[in-house]
């Protein structure tokens, strides 16, 4: 277990780092837009000094653009905060819908850089589980990351959670390139401990072009 735990810790840190990198890139983009708007205000001030007339609507546009970016940054930081708090308790009750929603938001930039659209079709009802939230996110991210390379030509991944008698399942659908994807190395990587740690099971269904993650309702139940 020691080696497996060490590997999971290392890959978990890599997952955390990747998300932090994506978040920092998004925040930098927000800052760049606010910076340009501030610069434009400065340009307008210079023009007014020189006697030019600036339409009030142009100033309102700048104000609205800055407010839009502040709201965007607020969402990014809230998501970062939720990710950071996912390691507060080793095991706790969660709603799988919330975890998937957060994961899709956090990985938006990574997906878009790889030219992939990720669509989560969340469940209307809560999907309550008692699990280690950070490791669950890490496992689901690993599946999403792998799925991004197995979409085939469509470049769309659908993520669908579903309640089962013993817990829940998450389907990663639309993987037209699954047959040609390197399944064995990916499975071997996860078998190093992550699936064991949260008692999850993975199924690669090439015929239906999907990955299915099965998760127990309570990690402590036998």
């Amino acid at each position: 277990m020691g080696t497996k735990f060490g590997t999971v810790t290392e890959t978990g840190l890599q997952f955390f780092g990747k998300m932090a990198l994506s978040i920092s890139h998004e925040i930098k983009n927000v800052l760049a837009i606010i910076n340009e708007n501030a610069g434009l205000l400065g340009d307008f001030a210079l023009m007014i000094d020189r006697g030019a007339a600036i339409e009030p609507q142009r100033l309102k546009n700048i104000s609205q653009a800055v407010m839009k970016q502040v709201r965007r940054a607020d969402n990014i930081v809230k998501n970062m905060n939720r990710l950071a708090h996912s390691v507060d308790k080793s095991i706790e009750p969660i709603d799988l819908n919330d975890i998937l929603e957060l994961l899709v938001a956090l990985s938006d930039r990574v997906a878009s850089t790889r030219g992939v659209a990720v669509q989560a079709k969340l469940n209307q009802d809560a999907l309550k589980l008692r699990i280690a939230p950070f490791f669950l996110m890490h496992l689901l991210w690993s599946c999403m990351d792998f799925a991004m390379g197995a979409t085939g030509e469509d470049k769309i991944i659908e993520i669908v959670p579903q309640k089962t008698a013993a817990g829940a399942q998450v389907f990663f659908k639309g993987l037209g390139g699954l047959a040609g994807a390197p399944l064995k190395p990916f499975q071997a990587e996860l078998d190093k401990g992550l699936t064991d740690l949260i008692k999850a099971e993975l199924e690669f269904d090439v015929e239906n072009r999907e990955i299915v993650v099965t998760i127990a309702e309570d990690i402590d139940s036998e």
Partner: protein
Amino acid sequence: MSEKLLIIDDEKDFLDIIAERIRAHGMDVSTVTSVEDALNMVEEESFDVVIMDFMMPGMNGFQTLKAVKQKKPGVQIILLTGYVPDEKRIEAKALGALDVIEKPPDLEDLIGKIRSLKTP
């Protein structure tokens, strides 16, 4: 003759304003939000400088840099990115980039770099 620029960034809100501010310095600025459109424009038109975001959908900055250089070896390229570790800067320059600048960029500095290209 004014400098002719192409700016590539998928953040349209950023693109529109920086283009407006650079135009105010007398430069001829075109903008695109996708790498595909950028490569088409580079092929069809002649630009002095291409300024591009490093993390674009579908292709990373190094791939885009190589593709642009393949089409127009003489074009100068400035990469914009959130964070510039030394190895990224070195690799970009080895691939022919003029510079790698962190976001948010200092406009006066950027304008200065572009103008220096035309100074004999």
